[in-house]
């Protein structure tokens, strides 16, 4: 586990996190214990009773802890401390996927489990405890300081060397065992914050979240989607129900309380077992979940859940069936947050689990693809961006009103968009490079396309206009003052491409460009001018008045013009080639620039980015990279090189250092050379036998060839 160490940055957020995590944890506790809150009865809160409660809570916590470590946890292991265990977790063929054992294995003692256990002790209460300032808690907060997150060694382990992989996260199995502890924690927090009724007012962060960003230059309809129109049942109801269950607890005698504590410890153990069973049963009725073989074999999972633990999206499987699994993720994340820190990543054998918190959502990637953490984080952020592109950040207000809001209703019909984005990460380096892929097109045709597009944009008074062909850009019309953010373009292009209903007829849709203005949406007009080629006109406007009436006519004119100038034909011809879909072919490049058919050139693939244009080009994938395993390995290989070069410049302790300019690496699969300069960036893949000198020479020649062809290759 890696945790962000900067206390300074964490401090202002700690309160907010603590409060939302508490709510979340409460949810989770309720999930595990079923009807505890149903026995609710109200009673006055007497200070003496409260103090007793706290004492009961702390003793109960300790007993949980000792029980845990006695019965389930053989020993606390440091990295690689127990060879037998690491073998069981990682090397043994059948368990090479740690999820195999998620609920079934009794193998515990990962370091994560250890920290979960510590949560059983009341020392983690933090802010709330300090606020209540009871003597019982004073000693605990003291202890909290000594608890340090584990070092980052686990994530630094070289990829693809299972033997060296750390054992402490070799299996997440320990999680299931740790659940009682989490439940304990939730309970404690609930009780420790017993106080005057004002403690149950809606969290103070509501106003923060609802705060609207300052308006941008280009007007955008402010948060116009229904997300803020019909507020869910207000948080008042939430706080009421919480208050009720606490009131019940406070009115009980100490003795009853202690007994109840112990009973609950037992019960939550049982319910943990029952939970996994229930989840399995749910799966058989409603869809794939984590106990499904095929599901576990997926190389990469992505999950989105609300910070109260409600499932929002799962890239594979059925998010309803995965509710139990998501609850575990929520427990993990909110637990670390309760310590004023943030869970960053977990390395578990071949799998890297990466956590990101965005707005009211937790996003998690579980990847065995070999991509580095930075790449997965970016992908999760884009996934969040795509959700915003559909809902705007008005969705955050909903969650502010009601943290237990179920966002799936709002996202209805757009899961294909999110899945398509996730799939695109496997083949498309656009996200990593933060640039878009232009369709190669003769400059005269490009000019004609651009003229047509600009006329259309002007005709409908739009802000931006795009002409897309599949996942490539034919032309882009944008105001000089506010060029479209490359990641906005990526999200928009994915949104358009993956929505089948746009293919059936011209359409209008609200769409938010989160990197431009997350609070509002633009009106998009989408018209496929040529179905087979995937040639699609997209116009974006912030003013709906004329837009809706004028667009169809203007699009008709544009379609005729593009056809008469030969653009449509040229794009269709380029896109007709199934294998290449408009991309360059390495075989067509001049020999001097590394071109040539398979076997005659060491150059296998490359990425060439021009930062000033925000564009990159790459050739089609061809032999010998066209096998499934080679395809799957390509983007992660690029991502590792990219991360290695840019790690220094991506914040953290070493922020401010210049990235590496040249990167050369060779393994049994491929030779990679990357070169970064302010004018251009090249990432090239050669066959494994290429020597350094050849690689560098080819890279130079390729660069100068592309430069000479740039009018055709890039969008002006």
């Amino acid at each position, binding site marked *: 586990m890696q945790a962000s160490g900067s206390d300074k940055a964490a401090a202002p957020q700690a309160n907010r996190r603590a409060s939302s995590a508490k709510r979340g944890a409460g949810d989770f506790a309720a999930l595990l214990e079923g009807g505890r809150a149903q026995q609710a009865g109200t009673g006055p809160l007497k200070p003496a009773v409260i103090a007793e409660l706290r004492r009961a809570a702390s003793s109960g916590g300790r007993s949980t802890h000792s029980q845990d470590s006695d019965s389930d946890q053989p020993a606390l292991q440091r990295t690689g401390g127990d060879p037998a265990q690491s073998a069981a977790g990682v090397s043994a063929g059948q368990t090479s996927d740690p999820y195999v054992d998620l609920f079934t294995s009794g193998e515990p003692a990962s370091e994560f489990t250890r920290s979960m256990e510590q949560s059983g002790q009341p020392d983690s209460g933090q802010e709330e405890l300090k606020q209540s300032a009871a003597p019982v808690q004073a000693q605990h907060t003291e202890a909290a300081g000594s608890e340090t997150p584990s070092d980052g060694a686990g994530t630094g382990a070289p990829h693809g060397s299972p033997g060296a992989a750390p054992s402490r996260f070799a299996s997440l199995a320990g999680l299931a065992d740790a659940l009682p502890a989490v439940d304990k924690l939730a309970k404690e927090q609930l009780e420790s914050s017993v106080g005057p009724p004002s403690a149950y007012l809606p969290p103070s962060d509501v106003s923060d979240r609802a705060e609207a960003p300052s308006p941008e230059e280009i007007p955008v*309809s*402010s*948060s*116009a*989607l*229904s*997300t803020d*129109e*019909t507020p869910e049942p207000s948080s008042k109801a939430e706080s009421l129900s919480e208050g009720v269950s606490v009131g019940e607890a406070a009115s009980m005698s100490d003795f009853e309380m202690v007994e109840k504590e112990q009973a609950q410890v037992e019960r939550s153990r049982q319910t943990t077992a029952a939970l996994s069973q229930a989840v399995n049963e749910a799966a058989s009725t409603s869809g794939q979940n984590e106990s499904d073989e095929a599901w576990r074999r997926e190389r990469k999972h992505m999950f989105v859940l609300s910070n109260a633990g409600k499932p929002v999206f799962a890239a594979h499987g059925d998010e309803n069936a995965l509710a139990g699994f998501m609850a575990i993720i929520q427990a993990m994340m909110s637990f670390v947050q309760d310590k004023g820190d943030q869970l960053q990543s977990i390395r578990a054998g071949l799998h890297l689990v990466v956590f990101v918190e965005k707005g009211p959502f937790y996003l998690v990637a579980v990847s065995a693809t070999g991509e580095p953490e930075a790449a997965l984080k970016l992908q999760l952020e884009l996934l969040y961006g795509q959700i915003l592109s*559909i*809902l705007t950040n008005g969705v955050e207000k909903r969650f502010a009103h009601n943290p237990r809001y179920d966002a799936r*209703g*709002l*996202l*209805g*019909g*757009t899961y*294909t968009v999110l899945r398509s984005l996730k799939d695109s990460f496997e083949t498309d380096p656009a996200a990593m490079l933060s640039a878009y892929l232009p369709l190669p097109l003769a400059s005269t045709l490009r000019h004609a396309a651009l003229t047509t597009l600009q006329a259309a944009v002007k005709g409908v008074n739009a802000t931006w206009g795009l002409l897309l062909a599949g996942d490539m850009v034919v032309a882009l019309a944008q105001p000089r003052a506010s060029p479209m953010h490359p990641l906005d373009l990526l999200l928009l292009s994915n949104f358009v491409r993956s*929505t*089948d*209903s*746009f293919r*059936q*007829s*011209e*359409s*209008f*849709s*609200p769409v938010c460009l989160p990197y431009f203005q997350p609070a509002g949406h633009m009106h*998009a007009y989408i018209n496929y001018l040529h179905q087979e080629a995937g040639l699609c006109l997209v116009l974006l406007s912030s003013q*709906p*008045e*004329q837009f*809706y*009436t*004028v667009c*169809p*006519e203007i699009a*008709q004119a544009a379609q005729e013009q593009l056809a008469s100038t030969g653009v449509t034909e040229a794009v269709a011809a380029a896109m007709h080639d199934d294998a290449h879909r408009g991309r360059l072919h390495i075989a067509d490049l001049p020999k001097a620039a590394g071109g040539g058919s398979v076997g005659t050139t060491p150059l296998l693939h490359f990425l060439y980015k021009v930062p000033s244009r925000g564009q990159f080009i790459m050739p089609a994938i061809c032999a010998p990279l066209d096998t499934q395993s080679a395809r799957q390995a390509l983007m992660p290989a690029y991502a590792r090189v990219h991360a290695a070069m840019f790690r220094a410049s991506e914040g953290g302790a070493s922020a401010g250092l210049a990235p590496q300019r040249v990167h050369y690496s060779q393994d049994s699969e491929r030779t990679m050379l990357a070169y970064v300069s302010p004018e251009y960036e090249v990432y090239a893949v050669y066959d494994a036998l290429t020597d350094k000198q050849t690689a560098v020479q080819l890279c130079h020649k390729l660069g100068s060839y592309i430069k000479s062809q740039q009018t055709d290759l890039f969008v002006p």
Partner: protein
Amino acid sequence: MMLDQGTLQQAKLVLLGDMGAGKSSLVLRFVKGQFFDYQESTIGAAFLTKTMPEQNVKFEIWDTAGQERYHSLAPMYYRGAAAAVVVYDITNAESFTKAKTWAKELQRQGNPNMIMALAGNKADLADTRAVTTEEAQAYADENGLFFWETSAKANLNVSEVFTDIAKKLPRAQAAQPQATGGITLTQEPPQRPKKAGCC
């Protein structure tokens, strides 16, 4: 594009209803004669046109998305519409409730002369019916809506719904002007969309 159809009466028609009721399927059946067993969810609103020469009408059809998140944008689509088809799924009682809500909203906020039709779609699934014909018919009569039980899949009563509407369109009003982006000369107030209606 529309010059040669100058004699045709143009009418803006909007489809509203719960998601999954079959709005897009109805429109596709009517406009293109197609039906897909698995119809992708509509995102935003689709725009289609269909000419009915025998009725001398050109429909400009706005097929809206049924999802909750688009609700606040609906006024933009139904404002200035000459006709609306409110669609529900006869196997889903909730969609009928939603249809009544839409009808109410249109009566309250839409064009007062709007012609409205109620379509109980998926009539081919009568075995699993959750809304009786009588109940829907009674509601339609009460509120002055045309009522048909339709099936886009079996092509049952689809064109009838639109024919009914076409016949009812007020002949006196020539071309509904909001169609082609020209300057609106008649009925200015109802067609001027209030600033997005959403913020």
